[in-house]
């Protein structure tokens, strides 16, 4: 598909129409999962483990069941006892046995906060009172909290059936190492021999949470006929349907999932936690609807953080600044069950550069922490923190400007990654050039304890399955049904692509996010895919609609369809013309309503690259790092709605700054999470951040009709590395552990050589 290469001819794309869901959102009328109220509804609560690692000896729920107002109590015994099997759910893979055991522990609890039972009662207070009446006898086991200790021989084993997978070869003995992966190219020893400068460093990053503001919630109504409806906060309704079907072993056709508005997900709302509980509680309580909502402590203790990690990077460059070799070891926390994003981290770590001699090795390791979930460019931020810090140090040893060093080694079309695959058209070098020419980079930074850092980042992006359908209204507006949950304004970015193709204003499109019975299969809003893939479905739908409307115009004008043309919203045949709106008014005269639909699974998504510049000031007394100025440069393909693209970048940077400076899971020696509120788990607020400037580099993606590239994930990749490099310029110490909190900065200053 050729990209339309005359952006100035776009009438809708690149503009800033009013957001379709804006009024509902700013007036508080938008309906979120916690807003659900159904007749006869019960309220659920979940009992959670006080231990990080323990065997469940016995569980007695009889007293809870007797409490007045309690209608159902469930434990893992109410779930099917599933065999281990990997299930493909769109982009993600789920072992349904582990998924089930994560939702309710069966024989062992594997992290502090692991759910063990759930109750439905007439009020939340009664449900919580009932939790206190459930007697659980545990045999406490030693927790394993560190990946390197978890890998040691003799370390306590979390999962008795776990064997190391090495690309299809299974180990023979129980282990905490779920996977061992390796990519290599060239001759690494030769590469290091050719190097004049070699930098080798070890890095540690801590587990962090996605920090979505809206906690998980789910309401289920099970019917005696086996049909169940689920209202929930999710990034993908179809994924919820599949997971619930797999875990409860009920047909997907019996499940309808209604996605509510979502108050953030960032990858953490792809997997299910509460939905199967709500469904089973509803069934067991005599088919009354049951609502479950988490509080913040449950969100932090038991829902998807992303991996902490240990990473070692060694890179060498010759006297001219050419990278001659790059080697990395990445060990990622999977949490309680396998599935860390170490594979993605391996793919990110050297992605921006031309590496002729490289080795990347990765381990996926289970520890007694919550099962990790995707988090915005999963695994990428950890990896870039390590590699981009080493890149900065190499540039320093070479006496080169860090951007010039990256320009010299930056990957471009045709270059191969360490895993062997070759890039198509990418815009990494363009981000470097734009960063070099930016007002920020050209403005000198002065003042004591200030420093400027630069770092780059990569993310794969994704396509996936999407569907859309449209119907034409008599007033010339178009109703658009789509299955992508709206995160970040995708209703509008999709409506704009439809409007552009149909030649109508974006305001004339009425986008609706539909439930699983009302639209074709659509993967979740993740992988930076929605504006790309669902946008493509919308584009194909519009083309189908145009063909159908040409037939109607032909009927009106009594000509053959091939005599009708369409351009910029106007149908023509000879000297006769009808605008889209005028034709819509005449549909009743030509055969009645017109609808169109399309389902796609497009390839052609292009990876995203970014280069960030940050100025910091460090207080050497307290260790506090103040962000003075931040500029994020990103190849965004074609920006459909530039303000939203900027917002995506700013949001990613804000999260990256939090990850860099403050956020971390703090555990005591017994593996109990210490910071289970947002007072203690310190995410950045507006006062912590300056205006985050953005530079959108538009290298149109040739694999999309409108040149779209995913934009949501790559902006979280460079911030910690950029900030670490800035801190080095400010105070002369290399920070190798995240977060770079005041205490760690002071400690680093104390040990400064």
């Amino acid at each position: 598909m050729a990209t339309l290469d005359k952006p100035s001819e776009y009438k809708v794309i690149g503009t800033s129409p009013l957001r379709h869901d804006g009024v509902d959102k700013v007036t508080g009328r938008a309906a979120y999962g916690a807003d659900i109220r159904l007749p006869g509804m019960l309220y659920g609560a979940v009992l959670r483990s006080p231990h990080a690692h323990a065997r469940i000896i016995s569980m007695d729920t009889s007293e809870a069941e007797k409490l007045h107002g309690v209608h159902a109590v469930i434990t893992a015994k109410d779930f099917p006892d599933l065999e281990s099997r990997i299930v493909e759910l769109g982009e993600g893979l789920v072992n349904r046995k582990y998924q089930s055991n994560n939702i309710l522990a069966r024989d062992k609890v594997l992290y502090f906060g692991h759910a063990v039972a759930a109750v439905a009662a007439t009020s939340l207070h009664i449900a919580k009172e009932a939790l206190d009446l459930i007697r659980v006898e545990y045999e406490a086991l030693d927790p394993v909290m560190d990946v390197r200790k978890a890998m040691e021989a003799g370390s306590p084993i979390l999962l008795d059936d776990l064997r190391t997978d090495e690309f299809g070869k299974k180990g023979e003995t129980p282990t905490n190492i779920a996977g061992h992966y390796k990519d290599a190219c060239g001759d690494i020893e030769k590469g290091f021999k050719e190097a004049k400068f070699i930098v080798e460093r070890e890095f540690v990053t801590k587990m962090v949470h996605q920090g979505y503001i809206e906690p998980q919630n789910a309401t289920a109504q099970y019917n005696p006929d086996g049909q169940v409806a689920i209202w929930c906060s999710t990034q993908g309704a179809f994924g919820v349907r599949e997971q619930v079907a797999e875990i409860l072993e009920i047909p997907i056709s019996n499940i309808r999932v209604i996605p509510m508005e979502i108050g953030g997900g960032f990858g953490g709302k792809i997997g299910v936690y509460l939905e199967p509980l709500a469904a089973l509680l509803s069934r067991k309580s005599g088919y009354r609807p049951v609502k479950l909502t988490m509080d913040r402590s449950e969100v932090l203790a038991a829902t998807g953080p992303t991996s902490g990690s240990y990473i070692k990077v060694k890179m060498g460059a010759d006297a001219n600044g050419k990278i001659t070799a790059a080697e990395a070891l990445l060990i990622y926390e999977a949490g309680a069950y396998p599935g860390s994003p170490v594979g993605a981290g391996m793919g990110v770590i050297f992605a921006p550069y031309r590496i002729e001699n490289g080795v990347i090795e990765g381990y996926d390791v289970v520890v007694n922490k919550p099962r990790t979930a995707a988090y915005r460019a999963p695994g990428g931020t950890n990896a870039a923190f390590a590699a981009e810090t080493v890149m900065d140090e190499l540039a320093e040893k070479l006496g080169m400007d860090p951007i010039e060093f990256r320009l010299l080694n930056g990957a471009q079309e045709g270059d191969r990654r360490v895993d062997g695959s070759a890039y198509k058209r990418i815009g990494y070098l363009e981000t470097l050039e734009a960063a070099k020419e930016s007002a920020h980079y050209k403005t000198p930074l002065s003042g004591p304890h200030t420093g400027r850092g630069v770092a780059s980042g990569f993310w794969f992006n994704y396509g996936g399955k999407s569907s859309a359908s449209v119907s034409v209204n008599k007033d010339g507006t178009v109703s658009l049904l789509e299955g992508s949950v709206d995160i970040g304004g995708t209703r509008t970015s999709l409506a704009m692509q439809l409007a552009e193709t149909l030649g109508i204003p974006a305001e004339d499109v009425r986008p609706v996010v539909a439930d699983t019975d009302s639209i074709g299969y659509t993967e979740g809003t993740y992988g930076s895919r929605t504006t790309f893939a669902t946008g493509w479905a919308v584009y194909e739908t519009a083309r189908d609609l145009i063909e159908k409307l040409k037939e109607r115009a032909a009927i009106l004008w009594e000509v053959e369809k091939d005599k009708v043309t369409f351009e910029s919203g106007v149908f023509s045949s000879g000297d006769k013309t009808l605008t889209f709106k005028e034709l819509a008014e005449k549909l009743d005269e030509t055969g009645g309503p017109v609808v169109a639909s399309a389902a796609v699974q497009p390839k052609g998504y292009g990876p995203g690259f970014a280069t960030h510049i940050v100025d910091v000031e460090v207080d050497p007394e307290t260790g506090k790092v103040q962000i003075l100025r931040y500029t994020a440069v990103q190849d965004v393909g074609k920006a459909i709605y530039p303000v939203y693209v900027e917002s995506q970048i700013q949001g990613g940077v804000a999260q990256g700054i939090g990850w860099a400076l403050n956020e971390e899971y703090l555990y005591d020696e017994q593996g109990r999470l210490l910071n289970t509120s947002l007072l203690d788990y310190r995410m950045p607020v507006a006062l912590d951040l300056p205006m985050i400037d953005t530079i959108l580099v538009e290298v149109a993606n040739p694999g999309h009709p409108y040149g779209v590239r995913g934009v949501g994930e790559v902006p979280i990749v460079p911030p910690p590395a950029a900030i670490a490099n800035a801190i080095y310029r400010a105070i002369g110490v290399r920070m190798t552990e995240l977060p770079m909190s005041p205490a760690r900065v002071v400690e680093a200053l104390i040990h400064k050589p």
Partner: protein
Amino acid sequence: MTKTMPTIFIPTPLREMTGGKASVVVSASSVREAIQSLEAEFPGIRDRLCEGNHIRPNISVFVDGQVSHLKMREKLSEKSEVHFVIAISGG
């Protein structure tokens, strides 16, 4: 009939089975045929890539830099490049 000759990149952990070869040109017009050709030359390699008649669920097939949804059924051309990589997910 002339067969196409795509290039199959061998995942690093499987190169112990290919005598260290990082890529192999095979005669195949689909991913399924490519794996059959690999198996004929390097016995046992199919089991590392496949479970039964399917690619292992934690392995993604990339053809010419794009993830293949058709996997075993994906058609290959003369210049096709096939990579097998660990499946990843985005947030």
